[in-house]
């Protein structure tokens, strides 16, 4: 998973064709629809890669 649009696992089916209402929330605090530490870690990794400092992520 390199970008937020990439699915964290097969449970995520957000795409422009099959949109998920929770997508934005899921990007930064996901996953929302299921609990999985490794999925959460994948999303966190995207944030960590580009966050400039501790104030960077706002939501």
């Amino acid at each position, binding site marked *: 998973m390199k970008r937020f649009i990439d699915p964290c696992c097969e449970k995520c089916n957000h795409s422009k064709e099959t*949109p998920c*209402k929770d997508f*934005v929330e899921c990007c930064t605090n996901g996953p929302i629809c299921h609990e999985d530490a490794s999925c959460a870690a994948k999303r966190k990794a*995207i944030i*960590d890669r*580009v966050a400039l400092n501790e104030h960077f992520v*706002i*939501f």
Partner: protein
Amino acid sequence: MYEKHLMICGATGCLSSGSAKVHQALVEELAKHKLEKKCRLVMTGCPGFCEVGPIIVIYPDEVFYCRLKPQDIPELVEKHLLGGEIVERLLYKGPDVDAPARFYDTIPFYRKQKFNVLRNSGIIDPENIDEYIMRGGYRALSRALKMEPMEIIDEVKRSGLRGRGGAGFPTGLKWEFTYKAVGDKKYVVCNADEGDPGAFMDRSILEGDPHAVLEGMLIAARAIGSDEGYIYCRAEYPLAIKRLKTAIAQAEEYGFVGENILGYGFNFKFNIKEGAGAFVCGEETALLASIEGKRGMPRPRPPFPATSGLWGKPTVINNVETYANIPLILREGGLEEFVKIGTEGSKGTKVFALAGKIRNTGLCEVPMGITLREIIFDIGGGIKGGREFKAVQAGGPSGGCIPAEKLDLPVDYDSLTQAGAIMGSGGLVVMDDRTCMVDLARYFLSFTQKESCGKCIPCREGTKRMLEILERITEGLGKPDDLDRLQELASTIKDSALCGLGQTCPNPVLSTIRYFRHEYEEHINEKFCRSGVCKSLFDYFIDPELCNGCTRCARICPVGAISGERKETHVIDPEICTRCGSCVERCRQEAIKVTRVRREADVNH
């Protein structure tokens, strides 16, 4: 994980002062030291301080390096990135700081600013939608999609947001009119035809944070019931257009644009229309005509675009900065935060472009209600070369000049209008004692005359005659009744021109007459320009008390009008002098003064 993030300004201001070369040098230097995996190099949007560009900010250390040249890069990489040591000589220095300043919080330019619409500029990679999302992006859209149109409109109304493009019309009200207008199709249009000389905040927002504008437009579309939008951006902004296109493509991929957005059954499509650079196309009806493929000329209102806009359909049209405010207001808890800033009648922040004889040129975002003095002296660092402040032209060619005695005026829509200027798009051109106010009025009139669409008689013919009178005055051919004629023409144009641009174009003349009438009278009656601008209305002479005979002036003079031996007082021959002003710039003693033209009569007696 990156250890360091190098955010180099890739906006037009820094690009023109050479940031592309600095970027190239950094790429090479990082490769040389095999630091590519550890250090992330990003071309960001504008951090505002164009005066000291090119700028790099290094995170997480929070170090602001400025005035960089490619040859500074090896040292920067070696000392800072490899050695962990701050390169002091590349930090911000200036008379307003005691010691080299390291970051935003210690640089006076930034201290009084409040970043709302520029919140992401210079912080994120504008070509990466993920970074926008991390900064809270598209949360307002997600929230708005759950709301009823009138709930969205109500929040915008309660925010007190007024149009940032010029007239300051309440945005929520405009949306409500369009929402209530009957139409089988509605449009959302973004006015990115920034045309005021010196103003570039819209360009900066588009270059630095394009998704904020898209998100604002999407929320507007949801509120009024529109499924298609246009961004009218001048073709002179290629970088802004490129980044907008990238942003739209990414937003489409992510499902924020297109069909059934985020599963709410809401569709929206963006179109970009490149404008050919006519100033008048910033006027909303002319802009719509231009999108339709017609000549950009305003048409009478009513009907307003809210009821009959693009192709006769109800249309919301706002400018870039207005849309960039929308996500801030609509996000969870955003409204409460937003209304805390600003004054009763003017909420939020405003971005100003500082230009002219000010020390710190660039963009600044300030809370409404801040005084002009704070903007010009605290943020802007005062006048270049420590000269005397004379006036500031606020609001571009439709605005007016504000003199020194009004410096403590709080900056909001209503006070500026009362003072004879306007908020406009937020251009501030600062003038010192070497600016001639008659010449300034002449300059702005020549701009509006050239850019007049030619449709209505008061603007097309009236500004021409006003310009001719002003030209005569600056050439020393002014007549005693010229001021009355200027004022009469100005009031006719204000009262009867077709569009907002026509009605406001006499403002620079009226405000300079209001505050600097004596300068006009001096030009007309005494044939004297005390500012040393109108070339036939003054002579230069060298003050013998101050001249130390350094010969610098004589050496720079292109026509050999200055004579004098080394260490002796120099003399200017007014017959030869072309009043180019090179010697004035050159003299370290400020010994070269402006004086009245000596006439035959004076010489003979």
